[in-house]
């Protein structure tokens, strides 16, 4: 049965139904509904806990501790708060811990504003934290996906023992749409070979990210990168819309993809063969799809609510075989279908 829910709340409920009954976070707009929802629900669930952390630095490290036990746990924040988690995210990746971080992006840099933006793409996908590591990044485009991809984030995190992020702009967090939730989502990952549950009848487990020796560290990093390679092969997700015969491929994720879909329809109505690729995983990025479309498309347009971040991944995918253009809005402005249409026509 569909219910009408806010993105932030639907996401929270989905996390709970996926077994994430431990939440650690610090308030920040536009994602406060997540913490508020959790603070209402979790104290009523056996074993559940909502802990309001003292800072975002503490939040992510509480998650580090909680998921070390093998249980599901999450945190959420928005841009400045996510920046404060960069050390912790690097530690999670370095210690191979399956945590889920929800990022509801707002305007930046600095204090910026609380309007929606998509300007934390680089931070999420390239390594806002230190060291060579990768985080799985999922980008919902509807309230329904706020729930589905959150559940998927927990599953992928558990499957690969890797942090996963659900990233959305403030609109997706704040808006209501009809959404269908399952009563519960399976959570059958066996963590008994590494989780910290007390060394009863077994040798102690250790969770760490230090490797003093250069060769040992290098081997470990290579092991991580084999895992990342596997994730790239198996877990890349995207959606295509009218790309089969497209001369113009517009690439957009999250809320912008919805605008672009409207724009594609308008362009088609005018006889312009436009199509859209929507990356669902921002890392791993659907490079192969774009590369293939470069065989037939005349040009690409990356459309973002930033000054141009994902456009680099489009360029890296297309490898110079077709022009890649960029159209973006910032500060909380959402591109309109008409703007996108104009941006396409201007490049024709």
């Amino acid at each position, binding site marked *: 049965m569909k219910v009408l829910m806010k993105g932030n709340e639907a996401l929270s409920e989905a996390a709970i139904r996926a077994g994430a009954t*431990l939440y*650690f976070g610090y308030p920040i707009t536009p994602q406060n509904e997540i913490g508020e929802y959790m603070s209402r629900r979790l104290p009523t669930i056996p074993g559940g*806990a909502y*802990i309001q*952390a*003292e*800072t975002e*630095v*503490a*939040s992510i*490290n*509480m*998650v*580090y*501790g*909680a*998921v*070390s*036990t093998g*249980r599901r*746990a999450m945190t959420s924040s928005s841009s400045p708060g996510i920046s404060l988690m960069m*050390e*912790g995210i690097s*530690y999670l990746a370095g*210690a191979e811990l399956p945590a889920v971080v929800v990022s509801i992006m707002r305007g930046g840099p600095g204090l910026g504003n609380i309007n929606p933006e998509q300007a934390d793409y680089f931070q999420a996908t390239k390594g806002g934290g230190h060291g060579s590591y990768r985080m799985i990044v999922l980008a919902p485009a509807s309230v329904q996906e706020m729930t589905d991809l959150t559940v998927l984030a927990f599953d992928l995190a558990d499957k690969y023992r890797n942090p996963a992020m659900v990233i959305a702009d403030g609109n997706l967090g704040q808006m209501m749409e009809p959404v269908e939730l399952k009563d519960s989502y399976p959570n059958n990952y066996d963590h008994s070979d590494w989780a*910290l*549950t*007390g*060394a*009863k*009848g077994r*040798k*102690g*487990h*250790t*969770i*760490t*990210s*230090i490797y003093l020796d250069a060769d040992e560290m290098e081997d470990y990093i290579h092991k991580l990168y084999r895992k990342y390679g596997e994730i790239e092969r198996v877990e890349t997700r995207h959606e295509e819309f009218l790309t089969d015969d497209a001369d113009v491929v517009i690439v957009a994720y999250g809320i912008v993809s919805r605008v672009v879909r409207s724009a594609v329809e308008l362009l088609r109505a005018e006889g312009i063969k436009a199509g859209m690729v929507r990356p669902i995983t921002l890392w791993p990025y659907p490079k192969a799809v774009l590369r293939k479309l470069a065989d037939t498309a005349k040009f690409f347009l990356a459309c973002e609510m930033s000054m141009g971040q994902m456009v680099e991944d489009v360029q890296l995918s297309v490898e110079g075989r077709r022009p890649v253009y960029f159209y973006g809005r910032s500060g909380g402005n959402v591109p309109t279908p008409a703007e996108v249409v104009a941006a396409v026509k201007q490049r024709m």
Partner: protein
Amino acid sequence: MQKVFERPKSLNDRPFHYCPGCGHGIVHRMIAEAIDELGLQDRTVFISPVGCSVFAYWYFETDNVQAAHGRAPAVGTGLKRANPDSIVISYQGDGDLASSGTAEIIHAAARGENFTVIFINNAIYGMTGGQMAPTTLVGQATSTSPYGRDPKFAGYPIHISEMLATLKAPRYIERTSLNNVANLSRTKRAIKKALDMQNKGEGFTFVEVLAPCPTNWGLDPNESIDWMESNMMPEYPLGVYRDVKTAEVKS
């Protein structure tokens, strides 16, 4: 003939990597003894901090986790909230706890997290080569206070036990020292008491141990104990700063 003192079984046989006369080894042993005596080994999760004791997990035959610099109390919060049956020990140095992790220790204490913090106060950053810590004494020369800690730039030492005692939730706070036999025994007793209280679900317990770092004090181990007695102990009075049962607080 009977062995009346031997290595506790919660420690494996690996030799410590610490410098001669370092306080970390002494306290590691005491923690292991307390774990053994209370029968907690197979429920314990030990948190190694960033500091010379970053590799404490090399030694403890328990579950282990290494935490980011200063974040051990946050990690401990996550561990304990996720698994209230575990016994969580957050082991931290003065750089880790009193500088980098100021917010984390205060708020874990304020929330009354039911775990035990062992705070090794050696008035210096051991691992990184002897920089000034928040607990460095006025006038003490370190690699970043080469002319002696000057209150004009660096202020005065922070007294963590006293500070945490301004909070309501902590159940047990004691400061001890490793300088002589009586204080060694007190330290051991305090650690055991703290773990016992945690095991009984009493709440936040905290033991601050004044400990020598001969290497970075530039003294030999013997002189270090003397220096501790004549300089550190007057600045940091030993004693119990809090000892209440939950029942008492509730009433």
